[in-house]
């Protein structure tokens, strides 16, 4: 920007009447015309004659390549060349850029603009631009002149080979003893044999401006596929297309309770969900045109997953809900997008429009075991068919208005329309009990809508070199409405119409300051505030529910800290953060189950809720020697939850709560980290990271034996080492460890939901370069998982062997 301002100022002196043009798309063309005149003049009548051409026979690699690589190619290389002028390829260089075709005239260096620019003959067109590199010496200009006079032969730096290819087939086998379902959920691949192509890529630079590439991988049986196709042509556009799919596996176990025999059940189902997307983007990138991207994307999640809606098991001490539940998932999204980006008068304008078509057909199956065996005796089946269309448009503008002021603004609009069908039925497996099966909970006409508008501003100010601050605001308006048949509490068989409306206005502001005047140090402070006012109206006919709530949420987040590095071997940073989210609910209307509030309990029950959190973190980096770098971190988090409620009255017991303020819960967490990177010899690389955390969460449980503090420790370690035995052979080692002890001892009065486990994963590998283009790798993996808190049912031990080849061209 500074240079731009300077250029504008100097141009103004020369041609004040054309000042406005310098900032327009026509500016470059017009300026080029003006400059051509000046150059002709400069070349012919310069007060500072051009340095003479060097009297040597030019060797491109020795004489010219270093100059171009040091001073030119960083801006005039293959990636987004300035003025579309490239110096990394002879043909492109001779073709010139946006403004000229005579940058290089083989055989005539005096008239070649490149030489005039580099010898600072042309005001405003010094190359490298002032402040972006040292000017060329007269000797360097002389070499450039000699190169051009001798024909300007040779192509500059690292011209990529026309064809590059990688192909890496792989095979593996895992022998697993123990729980194979847990193994694949943890490891991400199933037991047994597998493999495919770990990586493949083909890239061809067809011409200096045209490139095609295809890359990806394909692994089975975990259905892990990735294909990416890119076709790009400089100054025209691109086509990017691809397909990506990966599978997530789930354990088929439910909960664990030692008071029930057996303590854990499994659904004996192959639970996995395939997550994928396919896309194609067409991009247009013509000079002086807006950048346009038109795209289509298809996302999906399809399969069967475990859920936590566990079913009932009847044990000797009563019922416990630990029987595993599953859900058939079918979620698909089709998206169309159109993005347009254009720079006008130094304003960068971007408009992103998108339409999503989303459908969800999920079916939950919650089974129960009621008769003392392991069979599924009773089922709750839930079906949810939902679809929505959402249109979104985002318009953004940003500009470096002054050297010290950067501006960014945006508008967002979204409209969503959805509809839903819900059905829940129950069934008994025994034909004798089929009479009790029901199909009562059903709603077929649910409609939903959401409309949002957002206005956003952000400014960055740099009034002094050592001070910058940014301020921003964002206002959001949202309106939601829903309507459908709902399920009343008191009369399960008869659905009643229900509706809800939400009106919301949210205003957010942020500000931050960064100060670097103190030697070797930066000090910063952040502040974020938001106020969210919304009103919620919910109604169920027949007097079931009538709720009108006006809520106000005020939230702030304050942060301050520093980072200092006074010596090359050390850096220390510290940060303290305090945040608070406080919501006040004014319950204007409160009728539930036919009873008027305020003592009728939920949903219009909470009058105030506050979440306050303090966080401190520090990081110390030490590099006592060139080959050792250590990082130590510490983090402390303390969060308090409090609320105020209405009083509550039970039909039989009378008053069960006087209402008022209560500290609901407290949460404390400390995390310690140690990271180290060692490279004692050039053949060695070792890195390790170790963390330890302890946390404790307690709530106001009134002494309930069902609830115990959620507390424990987590230990993790990641170690990786590589050693080059010789030019062809390398050895790798990786070790991952994690352990947690959050087991709960409340099996009689509740569900011991906490987890106590340990995981070890060790990989030892060998890579060897077999030929110039072919290398091979083998590695062994040992994986062990034990989970005492789950009755050791999830334990497994696995041994894996991997072998792969990598072929590269050239």
């Amino acid at each position, binding site marked *: 920007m500074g240079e731009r301002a300077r250029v504008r100022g100097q141009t103004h002196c020369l041609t004040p009447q054309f000042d406005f043009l310098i900032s327009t798309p026509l500016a470059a063309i017009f300026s080029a015309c003006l400059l051509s005149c000046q150059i002709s003049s400069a070349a012919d009548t310069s007060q500072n004659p051009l340095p003479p051409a060097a009297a040597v026979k030019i060797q491109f690699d020795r004489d010219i390549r270093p100059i171009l690589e040091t001073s030119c190619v*960083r801006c005039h290389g293959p990636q987004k060349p300035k003025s579309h002028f490239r110096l*990394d390829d002879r043909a492109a260089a001779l073709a010139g850029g946006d403004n000229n075709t005579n940058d290089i005239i083989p055989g005539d260096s005096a008239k070649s603009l490149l030489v005039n620019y580099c010898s600072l003959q042309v005001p405003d067109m010094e190359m490298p631009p002032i402040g972006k590199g040292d000017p060329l010496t007269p000797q360097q200009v002389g070499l450039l002149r000699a190169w051009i006079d001798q024909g300007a032969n040779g192509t500059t730096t690292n011209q990529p080979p026309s064809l590059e290819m990688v192909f890496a087939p792989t095979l593996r086998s895992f022998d697993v003893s123990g729980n194979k379902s847990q193994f694949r959920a943890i490891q991400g691949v199933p037991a047994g044999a597998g493999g495919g192509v770990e990586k493949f890529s083909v890239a061809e630079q067809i011409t200096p401006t045209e490139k095609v590439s295809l890359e990806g991988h394909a692994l089975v049986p975990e259905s892990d596929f990735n294909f990416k196709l890119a076709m790009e042509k400089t100054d025209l556009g691109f086509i990017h297309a691809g397909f990506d799919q990966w599978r997530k596996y789930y354990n088929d176990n439910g909960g664990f309770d030692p008071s029930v025999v057996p303590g854990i059940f499994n659904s004996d189902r192959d639970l996995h969900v395939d997550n994928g997307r396919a896309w194609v983007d067409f991009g247009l990138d013509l000079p002086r045109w807006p950048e346009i991207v038109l795209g289509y994307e298809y996302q999906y999640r399809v399969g069967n997953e475990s859920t*936590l809606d566990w079913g009932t098991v009847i044990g000797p001490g009563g019922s416990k809900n630990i029987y595993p539940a599953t859900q058939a998932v079918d979620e698909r999204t089709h998206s169309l997008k159109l993005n347009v980006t254009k720079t006008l008068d130094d304003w960068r304008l971007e408009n992103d429009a998108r339409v999503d078509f989303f459908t969800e057909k999920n079916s939950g199956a919650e089974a129960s075991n009621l008769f003392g065996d392991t069979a599924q005796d009773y089922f709750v089946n839930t079906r949810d068919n939902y679809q929505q269309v959402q249109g979104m448009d985002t318009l953004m503008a940003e500009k*470096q208005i002054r050297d010290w002021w950067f501006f960014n603004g945006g508008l967002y609009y979204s409209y969503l329309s959805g509809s839903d069908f819900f059905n829940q039925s129950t069934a008994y497996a025994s034909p004798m009990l089929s009479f009790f099966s029901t199909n009562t909970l059903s709603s077929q006409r649910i409609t939903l809508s959401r409309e949002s508008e957002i206005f*956003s501003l952000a400014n960055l100010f740099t009034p002094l070199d050592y001070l910058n601050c940014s301020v921003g605001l964002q206002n959001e308006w949202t309106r939601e409405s829903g309507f459908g*048949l709902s399920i009343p509490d008191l009369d399960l068989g008869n659905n009643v119409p229900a509706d809800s409306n939400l009106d919301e206005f949210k205003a957010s502001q942020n500000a931050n300051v960064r100060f670097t005047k103190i030697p070797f140090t930066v000090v910063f402070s952040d502040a974020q505030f938001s106020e969210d006012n919304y009103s919620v109206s919910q109604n169920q006919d027949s007097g079931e529910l009538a709720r009108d709530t006006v809520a106000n949420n005020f939230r702030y987040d304050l942060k301050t800290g520093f980072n200092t*590095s006074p010596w090359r071997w050390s850096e220390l940073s510290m940060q303290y953060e305090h945040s608070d989210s406080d919501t006040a609910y004014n319950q204007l209307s409160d009728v539930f189950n036919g009873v008027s509030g305020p003592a009728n309990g*939920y949903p219009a029950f909470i009058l105030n809720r506050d979440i306050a959190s303090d966080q401190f973190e520090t990081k110390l980096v030490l590099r006592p020697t060139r080959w050792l770098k250590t990082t130590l971190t510490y983090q402390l988090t303390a969060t308090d939850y409090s609320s105020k409620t209405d009083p509550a009255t039970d039909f039989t017991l009378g008053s069960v709560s006087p209402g008022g303020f209560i500290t*609901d819960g407290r949460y404390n967490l400390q995390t310690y980290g140690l990271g180290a990177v060692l490279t004692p010899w050039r053949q060695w690389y070792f890195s390790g990271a170790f963390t330890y955390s302890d946390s404790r969460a307690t709530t106001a449980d009134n002494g309930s034996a069902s609830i*115990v503090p959620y507390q424990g420790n987590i230990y993790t370690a990641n170690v990786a080492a590589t050693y080059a035995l010789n030019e062809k052979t390398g050895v790798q080692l990786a070790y991952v460890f994690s352990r947690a002890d959050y087991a709960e001892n409340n099996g009689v009065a509740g569900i011991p939901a906490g987890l106590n486990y340990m995981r070890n994963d060790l990989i030892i590998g060998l890579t060897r370069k077999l030929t110039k283009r072919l290398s091979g790798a083998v590695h062994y993996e040992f994986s062990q998982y034990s989970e005492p808190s789950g009755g050791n049912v999830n334990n497994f031990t696995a041994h894996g062997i991997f072998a792969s080849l990598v072929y590269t061209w050239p």
Partner: protein
Amino acid sequence: MLKSKRIVALAIMCGLAAGAMALVISCSTTAFVVAPLEIPGAHFVGNKACADCHADIVRKFPMSPHARLHFENAAMPGQSGCESCHGPGSEHIRTGGAAKFIINPGKNPESCFQCHLDVHAEFNLPQHHLVIEGHMNCVDCHDPHGGDILKPSGGLAMAQQNQSCAQCHKTQTRPFVFEHEALREGCIVCHAPHGSINQKMLVQNDPNLCLRCHAQVQGPNVPAGSIYIGNTDHTGFLRVGTCWTAGCHTAIHGSNVDPRLRY
């Protein structure tokens, strides 16, 4: 016990032997290993050099939380700024922007883990988003260069509520006739977004999770050990499971048919 000690002793001796062999061999080979974030032959050049081509990013980078830790006069090189995440940039510049001479944390989280040790650890817990496995990456959810780290790249300056999560989890973040207001505090009130020891990446796996907001002053008619939530006695329900696993509040993200979020 004796057997395990022998195994440990054997492992230590094997390790020492391997180390000694490696030490000897390391003095006799010219091969070398490239550690993560190192780029062969490259050195640090500073943020200003990056601005020549990446002006759109560099000019707004001072607004980023990452920039608050950055200063040009740090004595330890490469600890902050563009090259602390992207690696030393001299070769990238010399070759006119060759992608193979610069590190893209959008494809490999190794850069991020250099500082965020705790996050790296969370990704190694039993339940986690599949970042280390390569199916996701940090920039899917975070904008490392913009003013708000808690949103994906692009779009407005500040994140909308749950914006990152809603990209994929449409089922949970869609509108409902009866919403669960906890979502207004953000998904991370209940979920650990990087990883957790608990299923569904819950921050806690027991009734403490819900009681943090739904506890209440218990009246004198409520005996110690019993719990009322609203005007409903939950003592027996909590005995059979947590608020969601007991088969009750299963529509925890919102319901279209039940204000108590049970269906």
